[in-house]
């Protein structure tokens, strides 16, 4: 019996949409979980994914990918590739596993919610593959990090991080709850798959895989490449959802969802990817600066998509563009100085050659940040290591939960009082996000709120480290044991006579 071509049966098998007779539409798709924006049910049935795949093809492809990535790991298991990696690159991947492994599992919730409460069968079908993808991504990254535990015990944080009250974990939980574990299907399609996956992580993973290969970390490169191919497929749930909302006159709602998550995504990206690209990746292996990468890949793509979809750039676009020059440098300085509060060894990345590179890529870097690092380096050279460690907390933003950065541009924090509680924000967009849905965000306590309200005992810096789950052996230290500061100190320029 001859087989039909996929195009001859795909739509028929996929489109299991029907009118409900025995239950209401709202009982099948409750607003809190689905959020149909008042669009009539049958209108959603025109949702069509750009990337079509059958279940058989999916299983076949995934099996091949799994075989490929695990064979590379097996081949490398007996080598000493990890021991030979640059300390800065190790910082990048130890941080990466703690940040990304568990959220991959959390993304399963978001995909599964779309797989059940998406308004069209085609969408639910695609989300099912997305659910399976995210389970695979979680398992892959737990498996790979676990295999390296004997060489780097802090890779345990791949699993541990999200179960602690470490400040970054609190920030990430807040973000991922907002984006996917506590989000409706339509908002998840736009905020997770269109903004974060299509806009940020898909491209980030492409760059990360290339950087890993360049640095000699073939295992990590293979892993990330394998994940990226899945992301590129299931991330395409966002665009048809956006198109449908716009066609149905819901452009303003779509724009608001984008504006909220673009800002949140940007801040997470600046905190995690910025330092990795511009400070942790060995200088010889840097292809693009973080800003160049953002301009060439992320921003160009967003601009094209906003234009093609008839959407506007987020209202804070000029502010965002300005931050490309300084935000991640502030975050890096904060992470390095507060290195005992993270589970990786941050590379300072400010040797003389690296400072030259930073000044070339970010004209004015010396004026903005040179004095800070020079003061720190001088303390290192004089043996005053205690002065390179903090004795108090950084204030964090009540929306993004990241260290307050506004002092870098001489701006005071944004504040508001609600029900007798004072909230502090790093920027106008973070305050605006909070004001979009105060009830959604108001109950959350930042790490600073917890300290001030007496939840952290004893109420001092050591008490905070214990609260964050960081034993002495787990606290970050300088990646190169201060080699960058101990190199030949700068000498004043010789004046020609």
């Amino acid at each position, binding site marked *: 019996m001859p087989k039909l071509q996929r195009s001859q049966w795909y739509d028929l098998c996929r489109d299991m949409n029907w009118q409900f007779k025995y239950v209401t539409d709202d009982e099948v798709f409750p607003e809190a979980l689905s959020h149909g924006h008042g669009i009539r049910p049958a209108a959603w049935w025109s949702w069509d994914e750009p990337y079509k795949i059958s279940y058989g093809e999916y299983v076949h492809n995934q099996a091949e990918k799994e075989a490929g990535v695990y064979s590379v790991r097996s081949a490398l298991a007996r080598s000493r590739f990890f021991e030979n990696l640059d300390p800065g690159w190790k910082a990048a991947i130890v941080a990466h596993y703690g940040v990304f492994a568990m959220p991959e599992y959390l993304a399963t919730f978001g995909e599964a919610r779309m797989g059940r409460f998406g308004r069209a069968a085609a969408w639910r079908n695609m989300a099912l593959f997305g659910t399976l993808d995210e389970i695979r991504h979680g398992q892959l990254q737990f498996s790979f990090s676990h295999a390296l535990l004997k060489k780097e015990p802090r890779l345990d944080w791949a699993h541990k991080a999200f179960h602690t009250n470490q400040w970054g974990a609190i920030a990430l939980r807040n973000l991922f709850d907002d984006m996917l574990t506590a989000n409706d299907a339509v908002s998840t399609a736009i905020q997770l798959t269109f903004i974060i996956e299509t806009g940020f992580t898909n491209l980030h993973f492409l760059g990360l895989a290339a950087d890993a290969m360049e640095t000699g970390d073939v295992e990590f490169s293979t892993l990330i490449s394998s994940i990226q191919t899945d992301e590129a497929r299931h991330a395409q749930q966002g665009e048809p959802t956006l198109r449908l909302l716009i066609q149905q006159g819901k452009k303003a709602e779509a724009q608001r969802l984008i504006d909220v998550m673009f800002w949140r995504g940007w801040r997470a990206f600046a905190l995690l990817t910025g330092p990795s690209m511009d400070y942790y990746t060995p200088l010889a292996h840097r292809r693009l600066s973080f800003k160049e990468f953002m301009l060439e890949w992320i921003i160009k793509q967003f601009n094209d998509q906003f234009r093609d979809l008839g959407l506007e750039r987020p209202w804070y676009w000029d502010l965002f563009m300005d931050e490309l020059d300084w935000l991640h440098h*502030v975050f890096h300085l904060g992470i390095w100085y507060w290195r005992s509060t993270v589970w990786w060894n941050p590379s300072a990345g400010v040797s003389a050659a690296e400072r030259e590179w930073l000044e070339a890529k970010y004209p004015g870097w010396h004026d903005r940040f040179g*004095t800070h690092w020079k003061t720190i380096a001088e303390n290192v050279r004089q043996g005053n290591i205690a002065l390179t460690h903090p004795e108090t907390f950084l204030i964090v933003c009540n929306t993004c939960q990241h260290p307050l950065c506004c*002092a870098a541009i001489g701006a005071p924090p944004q504040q508001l009082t609600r029900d007798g509680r004072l909230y502090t924000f790093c920027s106008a967009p973070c305050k605006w996000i909070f004001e979009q849905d105060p009830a959604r965000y108001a109950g959350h306590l930042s790490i600073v709120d917890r300290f001030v309200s007496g939840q952290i005992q004893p109420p001092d810096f050591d008490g905070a480290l214990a609260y964050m789950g960081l034993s002495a052996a787990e606290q970050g230290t300088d990646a190169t044991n201060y080699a960058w500061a101990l190199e030949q100190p700068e000498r004043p320029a010789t004046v020609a006579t």
Partner: protein
Amino acid sequence: MAMVPLQAVFRGDCLTLLVPVDDQDRMDVVAQKVAHHVIHRRLPAQDAPMRVRYHDRVLPTHHTVAQAGLSPMSFVEVFYDVREREHPGMDRGSDPG
């Protein structure tokens, strides 16, 4: 005597800190407590008096935290008053600096 946690930045630094002070601390003490976390750590010292700014107002040195109306998590900026060094004795109690 009560502890008042402040949000504080030292001008020139790029990070905002949680700095516990006492409600009876004078502003020169508040400035010292903020400077402790910044000067000689990320910024060099300067030969100039330190002042505290709150809501676009430079607070008189002799005012206490309570007198200045600072409450928990109020935001203050501490800075070196270079003009005071060059022209000592000038009253800058309400000078935005």
